[in-house]
């Protein structure tokens, strides 16, 4: 009976609508606009119309200009990375000498004094503690410089302009212009970028945005890129050029990521996710003077500490796993070495090595710990003389140069560095992101596509680069 009543209302409404005509929605909107404008004109006075937003407009004409917009964006990114690279070196080595060189032996001696079994000392001190110490000293300084700079740009109002500059490109490849926004958010964290794709209404375009978000280098991968660029790219050029060239290399990788996101979006929108791009309006916010202290505070507490904490949480179990695989022996050779020797021949085809592959498997939970994992595995398995002692974990590392020397003695070359940077861009998302993709798409199929598509691309690209490299 109730249902009849409800249906009656709807029928009534439908009848009335016929009399009113179809323009009701428009005419309602019109009267809202009219009234809003009437009220506004009564209460707003503009003292000097000509001065209004003059400065904003001038700046926008440059920043969002057809010719200068994109190059300016690359320059801006390069400047941010350059400051990060130049600034992070000294504090990084200070932290490393404190946490790795000083505290680690102290803790270890303490454990030996208390006659705690070797196995437990190994797992806790050489595994868990060392991994956490590595993560802090490798990641904290670049993050503490990079995040405040990035937040300042965001606060100032630059990011929506980036989206504005990129919008046309995304539309051309059949994706939604707002994907430029979610891509920019992915530069912070892919999981956050994927949640942000909710602003895209069309399911087709939203899926494209989700699948391609991983091509935005995230928090966890910036430090990897910066460190490897500093060691291998910076190391290959004269010292006075090192900073600028390695910053350029990181920008190149970031831009390559954008290129891949466009390319893959295009591929998807032409094949499995066919359709037209929908339009939307994006409002450019006014430029606002950033609040320095607040920015420093929020970017340090909310981003830096948050990301660092996550990295430490994942690093501790990873450290234990690393210690175990390098110390549990089968036929007198550790599991890690078995794996590395078996995988090496294949990995070399892609200009990588067994250590990198093993590190990426161990570091699936969090991209942040890839570099520390690689370093620990290299030291533990390569039995580097002068740096290794006992189970190969007591080594000194107090500067980028020493990180470099570990890697060089582990058989790394410029090619390995380049391929690691490429592979770090093009590989599966971290487990948090994968889980987020599943939550957002509710589809195992698209989650698998988002996970494996980048790996396939990464394998293809590194293979191609390696083969071309070896020709010359």
């Amino acid at each position: 009976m109730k249902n009849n009543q409800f249906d009656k209302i709807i029928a009534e409404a439908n009848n009335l609508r016929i009399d009113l005509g179809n323009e009701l929605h428009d005419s309602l909107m019109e009267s809202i606009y009219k009234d809003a404008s009437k009220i506004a004109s009564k209460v707003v006075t503009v003292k000097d119309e000509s001065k209004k937003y003059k400065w904003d407009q001038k700046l926008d004409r440059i920043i969002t200009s057809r010719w200068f917009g994109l190059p300016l964006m690359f320059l801006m990114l390069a400047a941010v990375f350059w400051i990060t690279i130049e600034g992070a070196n000294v504090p990084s080595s200070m932290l490393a000498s404190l946490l790795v060189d000083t505290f680690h032996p102290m803790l270890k001696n303490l454990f030996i004094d208390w006659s705690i079994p070797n196995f437990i000392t190994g797992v806790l001190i050489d595994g868990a503690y060392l991994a956490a110490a590595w993560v802090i000293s490798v990641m904290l300084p670049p993050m503490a410089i990079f995040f405040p700079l990035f937040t300042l740009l965001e606060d100032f109002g630059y990011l929506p302009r980036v989206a504005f500059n990129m919008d046309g490109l995304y539309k051309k490849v059949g994706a939604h212009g707002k994907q430029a926004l979610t891509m920019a958010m992915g530069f912070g964290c892919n999981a956050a970028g994927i949640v942000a794709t909710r602003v895209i209404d069309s399911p087709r375009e939203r899926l494209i945005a989700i699948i391609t978000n991983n091509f935005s280098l995230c928090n966890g991968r910036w430090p990897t890129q910066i460190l490897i660029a500093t060691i291998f790219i910076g190391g290959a050029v004269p010292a006075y050029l090192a900073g600028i060239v390695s910053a350029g290399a990181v920008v190149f990788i970031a831009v390559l990521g954008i290129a891949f996101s466009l390319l893959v979006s295009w591929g998807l929108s032409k094949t499995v996710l066919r359709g037209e791009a929908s339009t939307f309006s994006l409002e450019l916010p006014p430029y606002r003077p950033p609040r320095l202290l607040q920015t420093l505070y929020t970017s340090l507490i909310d981003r830096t500490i948050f990301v660092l904490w996550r990295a430490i949480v994942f690093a501790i179990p990873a450290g234990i796993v690393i210690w175990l695989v390098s110390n549990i022996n089968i036929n007198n050779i550790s599991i890690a070495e078995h794996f590395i020797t078996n995988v090496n021949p294949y990995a070399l085809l892609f200009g990588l090595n067994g250590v990198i592959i093993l590190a990426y498997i161990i570091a699936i939970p969090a991209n942040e710990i890839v570099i520390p994992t690689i370093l620990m595995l290299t030291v533990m398995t390569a039995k580097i003389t002068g740096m290794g002692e006992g189970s190969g974990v007591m080594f000194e590392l107090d500067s980028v140069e020493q990180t470099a020397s570990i890697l060089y003695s582990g058989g790394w070359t410029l090619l390995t560095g380049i391929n690691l940077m490429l592979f770090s861009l093009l590989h599966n998302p971290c487990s948090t992101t994968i889980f987020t993709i599943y939550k957002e798409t509710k589809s195992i199929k698209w989650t698998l596509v988002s996970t494996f598509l980048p790996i396939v691309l990464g394998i293809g690209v590194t293979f191609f680069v390696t083969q071309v490299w070896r020709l010359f």
Partner: protein
Amino acid sequence: MKINQDCENCPVHNIGNLKKLGINMEQYDFVVALAGNPNTGKSTVFNNLTGLRQHTGNWPGKTVTRAEGAFEYNSKKFKIVDLPGTYSLLSTSTDEEVARNFILFGQPDVTVVVVDSTRLERNLNLVLQVAEITNRIVVCLNLIDEAERHNIEIDVRSLSRELGVPVIAAAARQKEGMDELLKFVYEVANGEYVCKPYRISDDSKLLSKAVVKLQKEIEESFPGLPNSRWVALRLLEGDQSIIEAVRSGELKNLLNTEISSKELVNV
């Protein structure tokens, strides 16, 4: 006695009365919804009141889902919900629906509409639409410092008179105007301040007749529905989601039960 009264009227006393409760929202007396166009500073206001540090940015569309927090003021507990920014409540994108459904069905005791002073005319469109749905509105005229910098002057008193609701000039980034905002939120929630919001003028006699007719029927089927006029207008427009809500009687369920946050986000 006299001293006490003076204290209560002093803004310093009021802001002193604010207790930021963060995400502790177990018991509350009132629900406050925070609506507004994208990038007008809703999240900044939210953070100021709750003491939370939801990430803010100069960046439209930053809040995709709702954030919730709580504060205590004059020994009343308020739950505050930061809605995604929308230009209107009439179209059908997900974020607009989240905002609309909450204002419509979540029945907040007060809806604070945060508006950008430098773009008042366009922001008023949303204020007028919210005023169609609910009577309990406080307008937070944010970014007033930016308006001043751009030589824009706003007559706050006239605006308040025109809209029939309290209007507070604020600069949330500098934490200015928050004490006054709190005072009016408290008064509107308590019923001390009764808003008489501006209603959009409909010129057509035919329309007003149709609305009145339909409104009566809706009120019969859904007694106690506070915004029957708004529902009637949407039905006349042929708004599918509202038609569905009427057909299934969902409108009624939403009326009686308070919707949990998670349900709404997934709507």
